[in-house]
């Protein structure tokens, strides 16, 4: 989607290894979010950010950490990947009154 890029698009990793997913935006939006999408669960919020170095936990934050050192970048880290973290991860950005714009997602497989 225009203005928001997720990398990598696909990743296979081994259990116990750290993994970092990147979300990059060119819209200068203040708000950024990480969701995971799983069958039967829809979209669940992992972490979100209201500005540089201003982050907070969502409903499924255990096992994940985030960092936002610049407005344009929001990083999601799995400290020690587990099979339960196999999922599709979406980053979203928002500006007041316009709702969310989602990235194209990262498909992560933990083996």
């Amino acid at each position: 989607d225009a203005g928001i890029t997720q990398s990598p698009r696909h990743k296979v990793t081994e259990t116990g290894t750290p993994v970092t997913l990147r979300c990059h935006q060119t819209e200068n939006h203040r708000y950024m979010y990480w969701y995971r999408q799983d069958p039967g669960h829809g979209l669940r919020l992992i972490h979100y950010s209201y500005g540089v170095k201003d982050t907070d936990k969502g409903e499924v934050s255990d096992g994940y950490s985030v960092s936002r050192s610049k407005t344009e970048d929001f990083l999601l880290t799995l400290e020690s990947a587990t099979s339960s973290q196999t999922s599709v991860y979406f980053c979203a950005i928002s500006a007041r009154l316009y709702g969310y714009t989602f990235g194209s997602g990262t498909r992560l497989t933990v083996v």
Partner: protein
Amino acid sequence: QQQVKQSPQSLIVQKGGISIINCAYENTAFDYFPWYQQFPGKGPALLIAIRPDVSEKKEGRFTISFNKSAKQFSLHIMDSQPGDSATYFCAASTGANSKLTFGKGITLSVRP
């Protein structure tokens, strides 16, 4: 506790028919209700949204109906087309720039 519940879980409609997806919410503080559409391999995209000061909003073939007293809102797709086949999510938040709570999504299939 699931704050936003969608029904049905899946829906099959014939081309030209009306698709209706329902959503119920718990939190009376919610004041922004969007619907998102997602095609396979893509991120969800904002389709249409409503605030509780109006009971209905229409954009082309898509209409949101809102019932504040029942804490329900629904998406109607008129003249459904095969290209409408996708996953639809309802969501709610306490403001357009606050974190959204999503329903589990429903898969719509429009048969030719």
